[in-house]
């Protein structure tokens, strides 16, 4: 289904959704930083910048309770969280690199174990994508097979038009339902031309070649030279739209507490640190190797997809300037 949505109606739509009791999550400014966050009003929406964090947290929260306990006398009372009650959410203004990440994540969260926390949020969330009109030299979606107007993962995709407003196209039933429910706000498609799309400057990378090299080079001196500079923080993983490692911790006192699931990062020294004290990935290059392997080999081996959408966040935000685009490009040329 193709429609036109004026800038005015875009705002109205969001406000209506909010009044309906839906949780509307869109890029907004929080103390100087643009983040995907629930809106109080459509006016908060910021559409001209890529949010600092990806959209994955709408499905895979930074931290969530999965259980709580309380001791009473000699008894321990447990209470599970019921995912059936997660809020209906509309995720708006999602960039192609963030939207494309969601189906990639579907694979791992619905594989041998069905993660109801992820899947229920996924079911309850409608994704409204937005094409990019600007890019910087950290952007490399085109290098990994995506594009500034690729609607992958979006239920509804918006493309900004010359003279304002958006061309809308639905890609799922959820998207159509959204339009149906608010059809008075959507007009028939117009002939206006789309705003010029962003043009990431990176060359296309031959991902097959990358994987071929990775298949053969678990041990290679290159890992040291690539990752010696890594200081072991989790910035890259935490801003990444597809990194999905998590940790489960119990927090509380003797009397009561909660079991929580929160993001983990392969950069941390505690990542895969065994209770025995042994860590098979005991050095930063080994952990960084895992990062690359996971993204471009293991996930591909298992699910036929790669764990990178070329958003460039890790490149911009790495404290020590590690550039995954150039690493992958280099590997592809080996």
């Amino acid at each position: 289904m193709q429609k036109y949505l004026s800038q005015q109606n875009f705002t109205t739509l969001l406000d209506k959704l909010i009044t309906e009791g839906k949780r509307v999550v869109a890029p907004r400014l929080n103390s100087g930083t643009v983040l995907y966050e629930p809106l109080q009003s459509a006016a908060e929406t910021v559409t001209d910048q890529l949010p600092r964090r990806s959209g994955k947290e709408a499905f895979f929260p930074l931290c969530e309770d999965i259980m709580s306990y309380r001791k009473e006398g000699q008894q321990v009372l447990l209470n599970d969280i019921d995912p059936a009650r997660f809020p209906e959410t509309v995720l708006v203004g999602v960039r192609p690199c963030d939207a494309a990440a969601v189906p990639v994540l579907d694979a791992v969260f619905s594989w041998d174990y069905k993660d109801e926390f992820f899947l229920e949020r996924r079911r309850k969330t409608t994704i409204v994508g937005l094409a990019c009109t600007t890019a910087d030299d950290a952007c490399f979606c085109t290098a990994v097979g995506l594009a500034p107007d690729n609607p992958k993962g979006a239920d509804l995709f918006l493309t900004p038009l010359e003279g304002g407003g958006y061309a809308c196209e639905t890609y799922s039933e959820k998207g159509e339902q959204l339009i149906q429910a608010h059809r008075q706000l959507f007009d028939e498609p117009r002939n206006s031309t789309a705003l010029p799309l962003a043009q990431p400057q990176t060359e296309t990378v031959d991902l097959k070649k990358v994987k071929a090299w990775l298949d053969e080079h678990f041990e290679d001196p290159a890992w040291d030279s690539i990752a010696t500079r890594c200081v072991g923080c989790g910035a890259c993983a935490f801003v990444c739209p597809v990194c999905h490692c998590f940790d489960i911790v119990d927090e509380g006192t003797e009397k009561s507490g909660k079991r929580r699931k929160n993001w983990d990062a392969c950069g941390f020294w505690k990542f895969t640190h065994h209770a025995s004290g042994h860590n098979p990935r005991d050095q930063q290059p080994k952990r960084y190797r895992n990062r690359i392997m996971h993204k471009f080999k293991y996930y591909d081996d298992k699910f036929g997809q790669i764990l990178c959408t070329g958003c460039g966040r890790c490149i911009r935000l790495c404290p020590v300037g590690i550039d995954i685009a150039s690493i992958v490009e280099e590997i592809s040329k080996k």
Partner: protein
Amino acid sequence: MHVEKQKHDFEPKIIAFVCTWCTYAGADLAGTSRMQYPANVRVLKFPCTGRIDPVFILKAFQQGADGVLVSGCHPGDCHYIAGNFHARRRFAAFRKLLEFVGVDLNRLQFSWVSAAEGGKWVEVVTELTERVRDMGPMQEFKELAMEEQWSGAINTPELQEAYNQI
């Protein structure tokens, strides 16, 4: 001393971190002298104020303390020679940090109470309790403890209610 017991709407929780040689003994003396003071204070005994980690103060507030007292030997009286001197510096710095992040320092009291100062112990505890009682509950940390990142928050009212029930 038989003062008519007043009923208060709010009774603050006061946690006191004290050294065993001076303040704990001073509090003992208040007891043996049958002095009276508000029952709000819970005393945690340490060998020395030098052992008191600033994190404990933070932890106490996070666990719901409305006021915190840190008390030890007067300068020069430290059983361990210099523990209280180290503590004095540490807390001079830490209170500035807490103040800067928005903790009202009226909730955090430091004092020297010697083993002979039962009266001073009573005075310090009473004063702090009354002051904090007037200030009302320390909401900041309690509210913070309840907050979640938006993505993990369970913000439908019925779910929150179900969750709170246990």
